[in-house]
């Protein structure tokens, strides 16, 4: 094995040699430098492997042949090996990335680059605090030198700010070090730690200066303006190294220093770290410059790392795994994004729209951003999970909520940026070239992210291969993305079909119902996928990602698996939604509500497992005194997915703007994930009371109001898809209400409404999607008279709305009938009355779908409209068959469902007599009702055929109406603002109060962020003042350094 001292020797030797090579051209020095970095990387990785595999013992390197305190010693331990491996690998990749820049700038820049990396290596390994100071200064001077060489606009002034800030910090560090020597009599870190008892009472000022200097190098809020300017101004390659290598090295230095500190310091360090994390992420949301945005995110992530280091006594042996998981996501993704910034070469985040020309780069950007946000399968997901669980065990719920709030703010600006890259309209289609040496490192770090994610998953006990199979399927589709739609669609159907037949025997009870909705529904809607021509770039991997999440959610046996699946599903559906037209903001809203909801669920899980063994979902049954809070957290978390009132504002836009076959996926299928979550919550936690109020009553009211509001909003829409979207909100309100009844009939209703909603919403969205596809408009008043042009679609919509509105004979009526039984049984008459009213409103919007689209006058521009494509119609017809079966044989589903529910709610079950259901209030025979209605319909139809035999066919503009002559179809088809009178009467009820509320939340957060970031006024002197004040304030907070 190569001795670690050769790392330093290689760097120094090559640097000196480079100094002599000014006249030999640029390539030879560059090759030498890369070789040196390669050698350094090799040595560090060799050591790392030896530690990991062979159980290598740590080794101390004494310089100059003496032992400390007479010489400087370097330590090569496991952790040192990890950190120098990170630093050197990133530096090596960075040198490849910057090949062109470094060659352009000449030999000096290569020399400085080597020195910077050498400095960082020594900083990690050294056990001598003065040596630490020296090599910190070496790194700082080298960094400042690299910044001087230039980068973006104003790089030089950024470099100056960096230099004076780090110069000030170094001065204080030096004072601290000399006083350590004075009090402890040694510069060796190990000696100082060993003699802690002798100096701890007097040497507190030395400790304060040293600790704070190290922390200040980690850019804590608010003394970090210099760092942000550097991130913004630096050459992206340098920014990547500062963010990835330098910051990572400094985190380790802080870790190394922690044994010096007394316990009270831990709290200060946690506080400083969390403040940085939250404040930087808030300030970041106003940011429009891409590199500065990365700066804010960097500062935030490192702040979190500082806080984690401060928790070393709480986290114990788990600390390093958590820290490394968080850092791995940080340095890989951040370096990747900085490098991407160099490739894109655009200043503002909006200009990143040009990335759309390069799907691979877009994919990499998505990878990096989701890794930073802590989505699975990336390392930070597992890091965050372990962190939140550990903190919950300790009862540190305040810290948990701060971490989650900070993460949510980070999601705001990161996803907005991603949204710009995916969707923002660009003025010109710029095609830019990518040099392979710039692309290669980005690809490598992205791959490393996935590998590291698997590694940390394995550490957290999430490593079974079959749990990654659905993800692997999505990845395979990504690789096959060059194939045409019909091939990919067939592969998807085959894959999902195989999964369906493989798994459907595995599930029973409620899980089986949701399995059918998720996977069976998915198959059904994928059938429609054949209607698309071309390649449909990126669609299949993302759609499968969503279904993978849903499938894994059903498979999940513990909370980690559940949360993993939940986040996978959120990520997949986010990408599906953002594919729609004009859906940038809607997708962002969806993602933010979903992430916020997911964090609530995470917190709920944290409380649940606190102080218990394992992570099983069964633990939800035994939460104890905290259960009302867990219940609220989980319920709100899941209600973000069911779009209950207050949390619904993302839904209409997201569903309405989505592609034709995506709308049913995110509506008919995806919303049920929230229902599934609610069901798990309610089954395991039951009725919960807080302050004497039954939370279920509150949920029931939310459900009632959601139904009312959703239906009313639907009635006043002009956009057909938006109408359906609001109708989903209303229907999910019914479901929530039914579940909140906490009775047998209530749940039977809720689940049958959920099933029905799945059926008719899939059908209606596909049907209306077909109409939109053909008429090229979503506005109903621009349609009309399509009954003859699209007869099959008309029948589908007719059946759909009959089912939806719950009139006999179709299966929707079962829901209604059960509903009123359940309400009567519970005695919630007021809620029942409101729901009844909401049901009446549902007729209004259902009527519009038929009247405005299919009846009335055909518009001139639609005279050549054809029926919807076969592949869109096929799933609709299959659904009709399903609805007919369920309507004729209601016991085929309600009876087994009732048996399932019997185990949870034994009282009040229906009794069945063939297709005749009996409740205590009455009976209902689905088959008989169907027969009777069909018989009446058939006889009226026949009679009409007979009496209209002699009638004469009339052309559209034949004057049969009145004294006026309609020249244009619009004048005889009243369609726009159809329910104007109702709107006048009841419009105040649909005043967009909730949307306005969330807008105000958004605006005030933005305003707060703007105010917060004003402290970074760009003046280098002010930044120095911040640093000095930082020392002074902490001095007083710690009463002179504890």
């Amino acid at each position: 094995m190569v001795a670690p001292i050769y790392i330093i020797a290689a760097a120094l030797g090559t640097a000196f040699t480079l100094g002599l090579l000014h006249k030999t051209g640029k390539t030879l020095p560059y090759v030498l430098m890369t070789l040196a970095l390669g050698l350094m990387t090799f040595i560090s990785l060799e050591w790392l492997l030896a530690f990991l595999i062979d159980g290598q013992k740590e080794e101390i390197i004494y310089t100059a042949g003496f032992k400390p305190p007479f010489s400087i010693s370097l330590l090569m331990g496991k952790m040192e090996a990890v950190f120098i491996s990170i630093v050197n690998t990133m530096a090596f990749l960075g040198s490849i990335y910057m090949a062109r820049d470094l060659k352009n700038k000449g030999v000096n820049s290569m020399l400085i680059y080597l020195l910077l990396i050498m400095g960082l290596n020594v900083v990690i390994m050294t056990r001598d605090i003065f040596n630490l100071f020296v090599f910190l200064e070496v790194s700082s001077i080298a960094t400042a030198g690299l910044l001087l060489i230039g980068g973006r606009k104003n790089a030089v002034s950024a470099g100056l700010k960096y230099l004076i800030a780090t110069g000030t910090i170094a001065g204080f560090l030096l004072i601290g070090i000399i006083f350590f020597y004075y009090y402890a009599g040694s510069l060796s870190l190990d000696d100082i730690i060993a003699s802690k008892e002798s100096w701890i009472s007097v040497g507190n000022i030395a400790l304060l200066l040293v600790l704070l200097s190290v922390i200040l190098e980690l850019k804590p809020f608010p003394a970090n303006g210099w760092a942000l300017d550097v991130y913004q101004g630096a050459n992206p390659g340098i920014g990547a190294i500062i963010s990835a290598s330098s910051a990572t090295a400094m985190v380790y230095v802080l870790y190394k220093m922690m044994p010096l500190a007394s316990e009270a310091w831990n709290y200060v360090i946690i506080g400083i770290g969390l403040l940085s994390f939250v404040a930087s992420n808030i300030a970041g949301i106003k940011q429009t410059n891409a590199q500065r945005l990365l700066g804010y995110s960097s500062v935030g992530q490192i702040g979190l790392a500082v806080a984690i280091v401060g928790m070393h006594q709480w986290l114990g042996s788990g600390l390093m795994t958590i820290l490394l998981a968080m850092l791995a996501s940080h340095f890989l993704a951040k370096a990747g994004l900085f490098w991407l910034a160099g490739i894109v070469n655009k200043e503002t985040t909006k200009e990143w729209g040009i990335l759309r020309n390069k799907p691979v780069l877009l994919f990499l950007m998505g990878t990096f951003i989701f890794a930073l946000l802590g989505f699975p399968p990336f390392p930070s997901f597992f890091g965050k999970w372990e962190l939140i669980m550990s903190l919950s065990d300790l009862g540190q719920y305040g810290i948990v909520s701060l971490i989650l709030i900070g993460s949510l703010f980070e999601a705001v600006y990161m996803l907005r940026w991603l949204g710009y890259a995916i969707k923002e309209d660009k003025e010109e289609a710029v095609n830019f070239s990518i040099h392979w040496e710039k692309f290669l490192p980005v690809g490598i770090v992205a791959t490393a992210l996935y590998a590291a994610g698997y590694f940390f998953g394995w550490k957290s006990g999430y490593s079974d291969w079959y749990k990654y199979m659905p993800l692997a399927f999505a990845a395979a589709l990504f690789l096959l993305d060059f194939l045409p739609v019909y091939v990919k669609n067939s592969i998807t159907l085959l894959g999902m079909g195989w999964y369906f037949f493989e798994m459907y025997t595995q599930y029973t009870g409620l899980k089986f119902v949701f399995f059918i909705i998720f996977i069976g529904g998915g198959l059904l809607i994928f059938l429609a996928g054949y209607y698309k021509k071309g390649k449909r770039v990126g669609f299949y991997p993302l759609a499968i990602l969503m279904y993978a999440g849903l499938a894994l959610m059903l498979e999940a046996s513990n909370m980690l698996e559940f949360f993993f699946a939940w986040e996978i599903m959120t990520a997949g559906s986010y990408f599906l939604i953002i594919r729609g037209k004009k859906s940038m903001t809607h997708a962002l809203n969806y993602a933010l509500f979903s992430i916020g909801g997911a964090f609530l669920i995470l917190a709920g899980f944290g409380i649940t497992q606190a102080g218990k063994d394992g992570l099983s979902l069964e633990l939800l049954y035994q939460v104890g005194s905290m259960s009302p809070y867990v219940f609220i957290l989980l319920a709100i978390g899941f209600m973000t997915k069911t779009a209950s009132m207050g949390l619904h504002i993302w839904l209409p836009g997201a569903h309405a703007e989505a592609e034709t076959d995506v709308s049913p996926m995110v509506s008919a299928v995806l919303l049920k994930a929230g229902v599934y979550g609610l069901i798990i919550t309610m089954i395991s936690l039951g009725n919960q009371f807080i302050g004497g109020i039954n939370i279920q009553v509150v949920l029931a009211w939310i459900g009632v109001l959601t139904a009312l509001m959703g239906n009313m909003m639907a009635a006043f829409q002009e956009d057909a898809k938006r109408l359906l979207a609001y109708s989903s909100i209303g229907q999910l309100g019914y479901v929530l209400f039914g579940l909140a009844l906490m009775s047998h009939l209530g749940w039977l209703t809720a689940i049958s409404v959920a099933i029905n909603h799945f059926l008719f919403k899939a059908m209606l969205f596909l049907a209306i999607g077909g109409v939109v596809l053909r008429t090229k408009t979503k506005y109903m008043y621009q349609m009309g008279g399509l009954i003859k042009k699209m007869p099959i679609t008309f029948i589908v919509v007719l059946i759909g709305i009959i089912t939806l509105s719950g009139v006999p004979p179709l299966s929707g009526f079962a829901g209604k009938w059960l509903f009123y039984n359940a309400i009567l049984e519970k005695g919630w008459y007021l809620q029942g009355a409101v729901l009844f009213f909401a049901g009446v409103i549902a007729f209004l919007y259902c009527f519009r779908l038929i009247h405005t689209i299919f009846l009335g006058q055909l518009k001139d521009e639609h005279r050549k409209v054809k029926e919807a494509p076969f592949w869109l119609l096929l799933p609709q017809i299959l659904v009709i068959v399903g609805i007919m079966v369920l309507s004729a044989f209601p016991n085929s589903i309600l009876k087994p469902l009732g048996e399932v529910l019997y185990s949870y709610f034994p009282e009040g079950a229906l009794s069945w007599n063939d297709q005749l259901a009996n409740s205590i209030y009455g009976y209902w025979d689905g088959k008989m009702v169907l027969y009777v209605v069909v018989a009446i319909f058939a006889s009226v139809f026949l009679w009409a055929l007979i009496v209209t035999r002699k009638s004469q066919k009339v052309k559209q503009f034949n004057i049969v109406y009145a004294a006026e002559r309609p020249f244009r179809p619009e004048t005889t088809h009243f369609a726009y603002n159809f329910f104007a009178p109702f709107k006048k009467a009841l419009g105040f009820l649909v005043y967009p109060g909730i949307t306005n509320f969330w807008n105000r939340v958004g605006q005030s957060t933005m305003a707060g962020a703007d105010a917060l970031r004003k402290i970074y006024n760009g003046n280098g002197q002010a930044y120095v003042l911040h640093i000095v004040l930082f020392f002074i304030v902490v001095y007083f907070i710690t009463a002179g350094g504890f």
Partner: protein
Amino acid sequence: MKFLSPEYISMAAGFLVILIGIWGILANKNLIRMIIGFSLFDTGIHIVMVAISYLKDRTAPIIDETINTQEIAKQITDPVPQALVLTAIVIGLGVTALMLVYAMKLHKEKKSLDITKFNDLKW
């Protein structure tokens, strides 16, 4: 450390110079003056370092014929801080030189040495 002993006075002087240096950095808008402030800041630290290593009635840690090699530890002052000071001075020199280069570059950019003029990167 006795009041008004040589090490006390030099230590106090050192801190005074440090404070003057910090004041110089914070109160001057001119870059060159700020850099002088940094130099003072560094110098103050160096004085403090030397003051810390001072031991009464001892000689400099240079081994020559006047020193009895048997009792060397009792005759010379602590050599470590003096070695540190040398290193610190070198580093300080490097930093100062780099700062001056920056000042030069910035002056070329905007024909000004006023630090408040270089706040294009902010917020």
